[in-house]
């Protein structure tokens, strides 16, 4: 619980000081700043301005040093009695309904561990890759075509590949596409892990249909403007299918993981699993902080 004494309470306390020391006003920082500025201004006016600036700067330094050495100059300010009221007229607090024994809870009450999101993301990555490669083999005639396209999203050298080269293997494009695919998939999986508990009724609908539809719509809208060359190579039906595949698989994998209680309010030491006496200070009411 916070504590704050008003000036009146301080005055009532027999041991409390009646005055407070604060740093004394001083002109030397201003003198030094003015001298410093003139020192530079002399470069564009005359040397005499710089000379005046140097004198002021030296005076400012000496004055400032004398201000803090051997003892910092302070001035005494009397405590002024004042009427501070820390109250509220809004006594009614509206609460979300949570467990009867709790006044408050961190929402969502249960969530997925980080590992669930990563697993879901990687599983979705496999599903998406299978569909994309199937598209490459069945429609484009080369498994490397979608891989080169993916790399071209961030790697301009891939975009420069000629029509024939887009269908052949390129180590740099492959490496970039692989890393990009895994990282983005894991991150999106994490996002699913974080968001699915908040949409508890139909998580698969969110992950498998709504999110891919929104994402595909966004990409379709902006890619034509941002990168028309890349957009012209994309088969949007297969693109949406692979997004949906990712979403459904990632959603199912995440949803199948066991949930845990939200730990946002727990200290880092507890979340890290450190067990040591005195690590968690007891609450004011005597509870042990668990």
């Amino acid at each position, binding site marked *: *619980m916070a504590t704050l004494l008003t000036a009146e309470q301080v005055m009532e306390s027999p041991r409390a000081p009646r005055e407070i020391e604060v740093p004394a006003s001083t002109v030397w920082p201003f003198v030094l700043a*003015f001298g410093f500025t003139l020192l530079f201004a002399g*470069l564009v006016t005359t040397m005499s301005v710089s000379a005046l600036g140097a004198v002021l700067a030296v005076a400012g330094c000496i004055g400032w040093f004398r201000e803090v050495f051997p003892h910092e100059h302070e001035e005494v300010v009397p405590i002024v009695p004042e009427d501070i009221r*820390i*109250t509220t007229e809004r006594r009614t607090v509206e609460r979300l309904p949570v467990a009867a024994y709790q006044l408050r809870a961190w929402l969502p009450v249960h969530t997925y561990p980080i590992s669930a999101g990563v697993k879901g993301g990687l599983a979705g990555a496999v599903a998406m890759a299978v569909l994309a490669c199937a598209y490459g083999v069945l429609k484009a005639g080369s498994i490397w075509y979608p891989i080169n396209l993916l790399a071209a999203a961030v*790697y301009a050298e891939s975009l420069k590949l000629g029509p024939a080269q887009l269908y052949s293997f390129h180590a740099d494009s492959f490496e970039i596409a692989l890393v990009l695919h895994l990282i983005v998939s894991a991150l999106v999986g994490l996002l699913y892990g974080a968001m699915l508990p908040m949409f508890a009724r139909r998580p698969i609908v969110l992950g498998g249909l709504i999110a891919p539809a929104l994402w595909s719509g966004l990409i379709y809208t902006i890619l034509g403007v941002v990168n028309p060359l890349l957009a012209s190579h994309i088969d949007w039906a297969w693109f949406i299918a692979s997004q949906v595949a990712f979403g459904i698989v990632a959603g199912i994998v995440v949803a199948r993981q066991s949930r845990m209680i939200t730990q946002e309010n727990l200290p880092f030491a507890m979340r890290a699993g450190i067990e040591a006496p005195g690590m968690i200070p007891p609450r004011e009411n005597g509870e042990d902080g668990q």
Partner: protein
Amino acid sequence: MSSNAITVPGVQIDEKPWVDTLHEWVTTVDHKRLGVLYILYALLFLVIAGVEALIIRIQLMFPHNHFVSPEVFNRLFTLHGTTMVFFMGMPILFGFANYLVPLMIGARDMAFPRLNAFSFWLSALGGFLLYFSLVGANGLYGAGNAPDVGWWAYAPLTARAFSPGHSTDYWTLALLVSGFGSIGTAINIIATILCMRCPGMKLNRMPLLAWLNLVMAGMVLIAVSPLTAAQAMLLIDRYLGGHFFDTQAGGSAVLWMHFFWIFGHPEVYILIIPCFAFMSEIIPVFSRKPIFGYPVMVAATLCIGFVSMSVWAHHMFSVGMNSYANSFFTITTMAVGVPTGIKIFNWLGTMWGGRIQFKVPMLFCIAFLFQFLIAGLTGVMLGSAAFASQLTLSYFVVAHFHYTLVGGVVFAVFAAICYWYPKITGRMLNETLGKLHFWLFLIGFHLTFDLMHFPGLLGMPRRIYTYEPGRGWNTLNLLISIGGFIQAIAILLFVANLIISYFKGAKAGNDPWDAWTLEWATSSPPPAYNFASIPVVASRRPLWDLKHPEDPDSRYE
């Protein structure tokens, strides 16, 4: 309202001679007074830069207009850009950091009060040095009387051959001097937040404003240093025969661009992160809910601070970097949108289900959310190398960054001023005038900057002095300029509100908004020592704990 007016029985205030008052303000090391000085100084430069913008808009109002000469036009957009970024944006945010951080963390002052004063005066004198060029650089060697190289001052425009006289030097020296001030302030903010927090205020209990200013100050240290180094190199080029940026002697103009933008883009985040801080403090209070996702907000800010250091060359897509660099900077630019999106999501999450009070500060916050989202989306568009290649150097870019800096920073600053004005002055701002200011400024802003995207898409280049009729730009430019004047009227109303309310506003009391952070636990304006006793906190909302002892946050954190 949670409290009544402050009464100080038996205290009689004597009128002081104005010379004494002036002396007190010039010699002050009190963080609150320095904060106010920063804010007033920045507001002065806001008005100056606003007048420059209006002259620019009059010039562009009609085709073939000659309201000012091309030379004056160049000087105007140089001064406008430089002033708004260095002498309005940064100082006003430093001002709020100075004023609020010690109060919010329960400290009596900044860690280094004298350095604080020194930093302020350096920043202020840097601004005056820039404008002294109007007098000081007059006619030397037949050169212009103010810098005219743009706020980015690309090489070789700054070479002696193309910029004789001293106008460019004034620009360089002004930024150099104010840059030292910025670094001093950043050191002070970091030291204050890390070392001066009151008992119980662990890092995870700090107000988000303190967290975000900590990140901002760290970024200032990293970003301003390259700019300062570049200014020194430019001085060496111009005075000592150096060739850092002299392409005809083996130097590199692109080197300047890298130096400038490695400062310039983090600078955007240096300006916007404190605005995020304002949002994070104001939105919960007027939504009557705690901030949604405090740890994620902190993490997102750190992430923005980190990633924004690696996006600078998206300003340089058109200079001919190789495809690897283009790809890298496209990806990092897209990536920085993720934590920013998280923040917007969390502010909306805070408002969701809240009992929103549409007071003036909250109105500005809501407008900020919408406008910053649009600015972010056009930013993502321009972050794509392919898109930027088409629209770079067009008015689309001008519209984008004004959406960020006016729709974002200026709206957030108005929100902050309206929110903390009662704390700083002890008086409430007039709500009616405030709402009139908000709506007029909102209409003017959208008339100007929404429409400004279209001339850009139609091919209107930025920095253009005048244009041919019949290109489809005429009506748009006329409306854009009219919007600028509406904004100017709104700002006049705002200034009038500040002045009128200072003398005739209702007494504020210590906590007029029923808020939860420590600055509202002391009188308005606060005494020199801030708190009669150093507070002890046990949660992120210490005043909530005091107001609701039956169910304090400290029980759950």
